[in-house]
């Protein structure tokens, strides 16, 4: 009986076996690649069909867009990542959000002289819908948030501040830190805030409160009301409920400094 695995013959045999495995391996790999390629082609065709079938839906339905985004997130695709590319071009998703971004900028610019560059998401939504007219495509607040995130990434000075369950959209590069943000949140309820209210709610020293309020005045986000009973009130046009959905009149437009 021969003993296995020992001797020159065994080594040579092993080497031959290894070579055959390697060959087999590369053959396998080639196979797999050919198969994957075929699958990708099929996938691509399916995708093209999907795209043409649903392009309309993407433009029309905000619910569809949400589901689509969620699906993309699951498979690790960002359909909004840089304008060019398979997805944005295929489905026109990029176009939709790009156009929306432009509209958002227009609305914010038109109202900046009024509110200093701060607007509630509600008001922004209302005006965007208004601007799109009767046959408007459905635009949801989710759409707005995504478009704004895009704008933020492109460095347009945009930001979102969470207040009272919704957001304040900031469209000017005013420097707002945590202290400012928290005071804005406090002001959201009544549209104004006082030094006492800040001290009571946030337990701050008077100086800190005054510092923040002065900054808001300086940035043109707040106006001073010194005729209020008790102590001065600091009002934010962005949060002034009576101002919501009040159009810019020709008179007002004439007052805007170039």
């Amino acid at each position, binding site marked *: 009986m021969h003993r296995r695995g020992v001797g020159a013959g065994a080594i040579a045999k092993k080497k031959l076996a290894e070579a055959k495995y390697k060959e087999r391996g590369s053959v396998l790999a080639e196979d797999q690649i050919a198969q994957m390629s075929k699958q990708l082609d099929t996938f691509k065709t399916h995708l093209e069909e999907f795209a043409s079938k649903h392009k309309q839906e993407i433009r029309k339905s905000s619910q569809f867009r949400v589901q689509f985004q969620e699906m993309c997130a699951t498979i690790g695709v960002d359909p909004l990542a840089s304008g060019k590319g398979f997805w944005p071009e295929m489905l026109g998703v990029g176009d939709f959000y790009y156009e929306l971004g432009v509209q958002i900028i227009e609305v914010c610019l038109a109202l900046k002289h009024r509110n200093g560059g701060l607007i509630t998401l509600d008001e922004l939504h209302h005006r965007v819908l208004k601007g799109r007219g009767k046959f408007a495509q459905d635009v949801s607040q989710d759409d707005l948030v995504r478009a704004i995130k895009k704008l933020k990434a492109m460095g347009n000075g945009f930001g979102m501040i969470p207040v009272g369950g919704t957001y304040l959209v900031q469209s000017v590069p005013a420097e707002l830190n945590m202290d400012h943000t928290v005071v804005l949140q406090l002001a959201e309820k009544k549209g*104004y805030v006082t030094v006492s209210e800040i001290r009571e709610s946030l337990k701050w020293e008077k100086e800190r409160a005054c510092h923040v309020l002065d900054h808001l*005045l*300086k940035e043109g986000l707040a106006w001073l*009301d010194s*005729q209020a009973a008790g102590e001065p009130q600091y009002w934010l046009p962005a949060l002034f409920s*009576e101002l919501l959905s009040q159009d810019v009149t020709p008179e*007002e437009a004439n007052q805007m400094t170039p």
Partner: protein
Amino acid sequence: MSFEWPWQYNFPPFFTLQPNVDTRQKQLAAWCSLVLSYCRHRKLYTLDVLEAQESPVFNNKKIERKLSVEAIQVVFEELRKKGNLEWLDKNKSRCLIMWRRPEEWGKLIYQWVSKNGMVNSVFTLYELANGDDTEKEEFHGLEDWMLLRSLQALQTDGKAEIITMDDGKGVKFF
């Protein structure tokens, strides 16, 4: 037709002179616009400062806010700088409000004259401002001092000549 108040009118801080320079500029521009619109709507040509304080323009009873006398003076000074206001006395207690400047009035009057083929005719000032023919025109009811200035503006332009007649002044259009 009732007057449409701008959004600022119901915004309490609007009645406080703003400490921030940029905001104050916006505020004053809005006040000037409001005063002129209100005077135009009520066809007011003169204002008395003390009376003005109680007028609805500067005193919003609904929100319990009013512009202080100092602030009113600031607004008026702004209007004066823009050519829409002229003080009638040294004490600055009374002023002329020109929500339309003389040149603009002159233009309107001349348009009416030429549209009706009345160039080269002579009119008395009374006829122009109070005649039946001009009843539907915006310049109907225009106060004498403003009418005269408007015609003077046209005169400077060579479009009219003010004539002195027996019982007053008249004007010939070219």
